[in-house]
């Protein structure tokens, strides 16, 4: 039996990304899509490698690098999660490349960068889900954020993308400042940056609770930007709309999931501080209400998905407030499937008829397969049974009810009903409305295969969720 040490995974991904970047510089003449395929194959190999990992040292005897880095079940699950996300995003980028070329002849030369940057982001995300030390959390977060700065404003001749890039840059820097400031306060109170030792220090009762709580709130603010929780969500709609669609998908799945994993890890010590749970409940309430209400009037599908990602962050925060890591994990897995599926379809359809919901009019006539795939994605996002999205909501409601969070449950029900309206609006456009043109939409074999896999996974995990629940156990 081969056993690969867990830290090798990230190194492999980094090497792959850098190698592609170097090749691109020296072999300027070849078709850039080869780099994308190389990236997909490399990431798939790493994904397979995650099933042959050597166990890391036990937490008590951790030393050296293992003080910062853990290879527990949660982190390994999310490493796979990030790899799958990146693979799908790169596939979407191949579909998106013509749009990039059309927009600006000169950027087409940079397609190699467009395909290699997600790999570097992926390495950062994989580090982030393993990080158990504030310093390491901050460093890997910056790796993720900086590569996103480039990706968001990649179509650099497009003013909307530039606006999105600047907004993301400024607010990203601001949130990083909050995070660092919070970390210094906590370090000042406890003298530690390792989460386990901070927990022990909080539990000892010899610390200044107010100072620690202040630091914790600052850290939550910093993370709130990452997961797009209200009131730190204002960058989301504009950045989501302006960024290239595959990057939007990457932001809304990868970056958000990593934020939630870090949140789960830091909340373990933080929940010992006074009023912390109440604060999380309050943020969760605001987030579900804002996300769902703001999504209702949207006519631009990308913006709609942006607001819906805020709404989903709200449901996830409900589970976080009940401290149910299993529900958070399952919901994120379901969220990955349905969000990537809808963005993959959007990437293809928007190149023909634009990203407004009206661009989907009569899609069932033009492209029955894409319309059906979108139907599954929307049903799952709305939370209809037999889809993974429903089981995720189900787990969240189970834990909220078990914790007697009546307010969260009541608000949750109303907002779920809201969600039905705006998700079915897309279904209505596809099936009720007459089509404006009758061109069929070509779908590449690779994208079609990925979409079929996502559809099957959405339905299978909606009926048989046990594999995901098991993945967290050992």
């Amino acid at each position, binding site marked *: 039996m081969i056993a690969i040490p867990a830290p090798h995974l990230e190194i492999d991904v980094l090497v792959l990304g850098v190698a592609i970047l170097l090749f691109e510089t020296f072999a300027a003449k070849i078709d850039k899509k080869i780099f994308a395929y190389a990236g997909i194959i490399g990431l798939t190999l790493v994904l397979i490698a995650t099933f042959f990992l050597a166990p890391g040292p036990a937490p008590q005897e951790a030393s050296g690098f293992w003080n910062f880095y853990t290879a527990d079940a949660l982190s390994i699950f999310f490493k796979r999660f990030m790899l799958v996300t990146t693979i799908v995003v790169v596939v979407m980028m191949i579909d998106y490349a013509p749009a990039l070329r059309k927009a600006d002849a000169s950027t087409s030369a940079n397609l190699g960068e467009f395909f290699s940057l997600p790999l570097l982001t992926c390495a950062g995300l994989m580090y982030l889900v393993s990080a158990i030390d504030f310093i390491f959390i901050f460093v890997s977060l910056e790796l993720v954020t900086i590569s996103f700065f480039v990706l968001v404003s990649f179509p650099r001749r497009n003013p909307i993308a530039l606006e999105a890039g600047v907004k993301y840059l400024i607010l990203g820097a601001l949130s990083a400042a909050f995070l660092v400031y919070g970390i210094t306060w906590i370090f000042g109170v406890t003298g530690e940056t390792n989460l386990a030792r901070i927990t022990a220090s909080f539990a000892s009762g010899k610390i200044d609770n107010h100072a620690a709580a202040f630091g914790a709130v600052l850290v939550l603010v910093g993370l709130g930007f990452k997961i797009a929780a209200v009131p730190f969500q204002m960058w989301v709609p504009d950045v989501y709309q302006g960024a290239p669609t595959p990057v939007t998908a990457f932001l809304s799945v990868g970056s958000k999931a990593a934020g939630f994993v870090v949140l789960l890890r830091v909340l373990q010590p933080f929940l010992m501080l006074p009023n912390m749970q109440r604060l999380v409940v309050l943020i969760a309430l605001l987030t579900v209400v804002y996300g769902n209400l703001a999504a209702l009037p949207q006519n631009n599908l990308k913006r709609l998905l942006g607001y819906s990602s805020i709404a989903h962050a709200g449901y996830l925060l409900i589970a976080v407030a009940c401290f149910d890591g299993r529900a958070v994990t399952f919901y994120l897995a379901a969220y990955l499937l349905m969000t990537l599926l809808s963005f993959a379809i959007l990437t293809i359809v928007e190149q023909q008829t634009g990203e407004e919901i009206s661009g989907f009019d009569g899609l*069932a006539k033009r492209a029955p397969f894409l319309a*059906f795939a979108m*139907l599954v994605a929307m*049903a799952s996002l*709305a939370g*209809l*049974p*037999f889809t993974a999205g*429903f089981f995720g909501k*189900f787990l969240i*409601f*189970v834990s909220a*009810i*078990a914790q007697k969070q009546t307010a969260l*449950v009541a608000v949750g*029900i*109303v907002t*779920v*009903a809201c969600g*039905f*309206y705006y998700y*079915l609006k897309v*279904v*209505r456009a596809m*099936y*009720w409305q007459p089509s404006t043109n009758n061109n069929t939409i070509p779908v590449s074999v690779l994208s079609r295969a990925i979409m079929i896999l996502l559809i099957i996974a959405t339905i299978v995990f909606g*009926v*048989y*969720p*046990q594999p995901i*629940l098991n993945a967290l156990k050992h």
Partner: protein
Amino acid sequence: MLLFLVLCPIAAAILIIAGAPARFTALVAAILNFVVALILLSRFDQVAAGFQFVSSFAVSTDWRIHFAFGVDGLSLLMLLLSTIVTFAAVWFTGKIDNYERAFYACLLFISAGAIGAFTSVDLFFFYAFHELALVPTFLLIGIWGTGNRVRAAWKITIYLALGSFILLIGLILLYQSVPPPERTFDIRELRDSIAVHPITASDQRHIYLLLLLGFGILISLFPFHSWAPEAYASAPPPAAMLHAGVLKKFGLYGLLRLATPMLPEGAHYWMYLLVILLLGNIIYIGLVTIAQKQLDWMLGYSSVMHMGYIFLGIASANVLGTTGAAALIFAHGLSIALLFAIAGEIRSRTGTLEFSELGGLAKVMPFAGLAFGFAAFAAIGLPGFANFASEIMIFFGAIRNGWEMQRLHIFQIATVLALWGVVISTVYMLRAYRSTFMGAMNERWEKLVDLGSGLRIPVALLIAGLLWFGFFPQTLVQMVMPTFRTYFTVTK
């Protein structure tokens, strides 16, 4: 067997989308299902009370969710109703202009959802299968509906989604009401463990209220009824048949399956509220029905009104009343399906269902007139039809409830008022019959043709069902009685 019943419509729907001939495949699936349901009926042991033909697959060991199916008398009755109405609805589907495949696929998905919900032994799938029908209903009304279809489709979808999620909270609370090691979604085990560890009275009240609210929205309990007439008036006839005849009964089935046996004290506590609301259904909606000027709206309102009687049977909380409720679910399902089918046929010929435009149609469409007459008389509750037998049981059951406590209990008053409901439904049904089929005929309709001989088969089947159980109600009662007998010996 049961797994086949659930998967057959889904498989047929997938085949149709993939390219099989739509009408033929759908009909074969519907007939197969009907035959299998009859075979189940013939092999069913009528004396035993528990679930039979159980097949079960573990889905989540952590949460003890099983993909499990089984039937007892009550589910078998619902199963029979679903398969008959599915068969009739598929048969009555006329020519569809656009997306023909999707139309049949939607019908079959609704049917699969109903069958799955009625035969599921697991709370999770009991809920999940009902929701399976939500999007098909939205599409059916939205794409092929008439009138103000956009409004109707949104209204029914948002209402039902909200109701379902309230219901989901109630079901989760029910699941969490037993001590943690015994928590399970298996309805049978849940009942057993509730019998050992009874739920406290205050918990029962909360859960029952949530279930009543959730199921009530799905059943169109007054005052949550406003989605129903609008949706049924707009829906294409086969969709209205399936939804009003079968799917809406899910809520009633749920109350009988879960709330009555597991939450008797909760039911007792909210009895007064329920009685007042159901009188709203019978009297208020009854009067609203009389005021309707269009046949489809009138039928939609009448289906809301008749839910009141079934609620009365459920509220009476004794074997007689609940048996009557179950029987009326079946009888009403058949009669309303037939009424919607005939109304749909009239609309497809005349293009209107305004009473003022119609009239004298019996001259050109004698068979349709006959069939509508049968269904209308059944809906009124004339002796000889299954509806009469069921309503009698409900009234006797309701009168008996509380008789020991005091002579003029609220139930006696409610029953007397509900009896007036029969008069109300006589008024609107006969008026509808007169203004549609009798009187002077508009010369525009002289060229109309009657129902073809092909369409007479499902009509005959529905009427036969109504008459058979009208003359031999005992066959039906014997089927469901054992189930209800265990309810009231376990709890009292």
